[in-house]
């Protein structure tokens, strides 16, 4: 298959003692080889848990309710969701992940060396020395000075930027096919952000991995991604390539987001904000989930949920505006 990852109508549920609530509703997308795929959306729109679900990292009370996730592993095409223990062979080796909070993402009581090597221990049978070599090499690759001594140090002794680099090192040390980066820069200050993103870009080249970049920051998308999916309230509302998203955004929400950003630039306009709130988990509108915030809503939007349709080559959108079948209603 030419795609590294294919997510097919994925559904994720919040299972409490007495209720099951669907947070993510049939999400589908593909990530191509060496492609970097962006997932953008406001916080709480379900992008992170989607990412988590790929590696079966969801923990109580979250679980994947339906769908498949096909991954083109060394062992051929596999459905990650149906895997049991075997998934561990994939984790960290073929798919790896970077998290939002470098500060808390590392175990505070082990040295950096331990934590880098750990991955190797799981997936290779190198001896300690080689592992160490590899670790050092990795650290240099992610641009860490004085790597030697840093190996012996503990997370709490290092800065966020450092830690994130280390996270990247850990993530890439097994040269995975796919790297999932969940808001890798959010917790860092701007200057560092840039460095990290550049780093990821160049590593992507040298390791030729695919990347799923999850963020709420369109800037990051612009910097790193080729293809983008816009999440809203647990659904993909628009999927297209970066260029088209910035210049021909179809979905009202997307354009809303863009205006919010672009208006940042010039002081003439006051900061644009999308009116209203993201529907909080639980209440799911009957029709289009964006309807109540949408300035171009039609009456049909109220009660009929729109489909995610291909409105032009490689450009999907979930909105009645682009659905002629919607017009006559």
């Amino acid at each position: 298959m030419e795609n590294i990852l294919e997510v097919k109508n994925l559904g994720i549920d919040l299972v409490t003692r007495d209720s099951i609530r669907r947070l993510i509703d049939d999400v589908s997308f593909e990530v191509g080889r060496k492609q970097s795929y962006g997932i953008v959306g406001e916080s709480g729109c379900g992008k992170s848990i989607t990412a988590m679900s790929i590696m079966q990292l969801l923990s109580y009370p979250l679980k994947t309710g339906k769908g498949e996730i096909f991954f083109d592993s060394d062992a051929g095409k596999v459905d990650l969701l149906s895997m049991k223990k075997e998934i561990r062979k994939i984790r960290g080796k073929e798919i790896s992940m970077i998290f939002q909070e470098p500060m808390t993402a590392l175990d505070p009581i082990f040295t950096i060396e331990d934590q880098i090597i750990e991955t190797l221990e799981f997936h290779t049978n190198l001896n300690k020395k080689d592992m160490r070599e590899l670790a050092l090499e990795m650290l240099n690759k992610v641009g860490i000075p004085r790597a030697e001594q840093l190996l012996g140090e503990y997370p709490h002794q290092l800065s966020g930027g450092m830690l994130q680099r280390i996270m990247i090192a850990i993530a890439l040390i097994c040269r995975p096919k796919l790297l999932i980066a969940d808001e890798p820069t959010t917790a860092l200050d701007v200057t560092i952000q840039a460095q990290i993103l550049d780093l990821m870009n160049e590593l992507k080249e040298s390791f030729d991995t695919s990347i799923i970049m999850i963020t709420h920051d369109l800037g990051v998308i612009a910097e790193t991604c080729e293809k983008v999916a816009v999440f809203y309230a647990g659904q993909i509302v628009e999927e297209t390539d970066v260029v088209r998203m910035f210049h021909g955004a179809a979905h009202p929400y997307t354009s809303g987001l863009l205006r919010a950003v672009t208006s940042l630039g010039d002081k003439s306009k006051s900061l644009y904000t999308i009116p209203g709130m993201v529907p909080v988990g639980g209440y799911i509108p009957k029709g289009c989930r964006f309807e109540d915030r949408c300035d171009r809503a039609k009456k049909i939007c109220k009660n009929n949920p729109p489909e995610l349709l291909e409105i032009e080559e490689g450009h999907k959108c979930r909105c009645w505006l682009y659905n002629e079948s919607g017009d006559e209603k």
Partner: protein
Amino acid sequence: MWSYIIKRLLGLIPVLIGISLCIFLVLQLIPGDVISGLLGIEENPELRAQLEKKFGLDQPLYKQYWDWISKAVRGNFGRSFRTDNEIFPEIIARFKITAQLTVMAAVISCLIGIPLGILSAIKRNTWVDGIVRIIALLGVSVPNFASATLLVLFLSLVLNYYPPVGYVGFFNNASVNMKIMILPAIILGTSMSGSVMRMTRSSVLEVLRQDFIKTVRAKGASEKIVIFKHALKNGLIPIITLIGMQIGSLLGGAVVAEQIFSIPGLGLMTLTAINQRDYPVVQGCVLFIAFVYVLVNLIVDILYTYVDPRISYK
């Protein structure tokens, strides 16, 4: 680190002085005195006067205290009013016994408590968890003296067994010593294990909720690694603290078990001394127990730096 230890040991001094003062004064408050205890019905003013002179109880308080403390710091706790026995060596002899009992109990409690705790943490909110927790709680909720009596009764009635009478030191006859010590150790251990289990469970759960566990999983770690290498090691601090506390409190707190199984331990010694108002013995015992207790705490604190690099005493 060293300076820290020194500081702590110095910090010990006021504590010990405080304790010695407390204990000394409390003893004065406690009704009844060693002499009435000694003479009982035979008491008459003449005898009392004699003994007060003999024990120096006719001296003013501050002087009594000073005489005692000034000797005590030189490791001379004086002689028992009642048995005229030298106190310090006696305390040491007793301490060895109690220490052995305590350690055995602690080990048993960990062997039971930690695995169960982890188990119920992993199986959180399942029936396994429920059962384990209830078992643990049973351990906590049966008074030692009841379970001990039951055990003794069961052994003697059903199996016609009772441990050898007359304590024997470990190095004199290990097997006999073990026969004597194991029962009380089990009783104490099981009752401790309950709280160990609870603590393990809650702190492991605590850790399992943290971000880095996701990272570890994302690396492809097996649950075994996640639990034992990361979760347990991170959750260790509260567990160690708890065990430390329990060991400390057992030093004198094993009284009940010591009494039922006739173990000549420190707790029993202190209790007898309290009941008999044998002032120098009580003072000696409590002071010593306190000293060891604080030492145990110090060790616990140092252990922290082991398990958690973030803690360091600079």
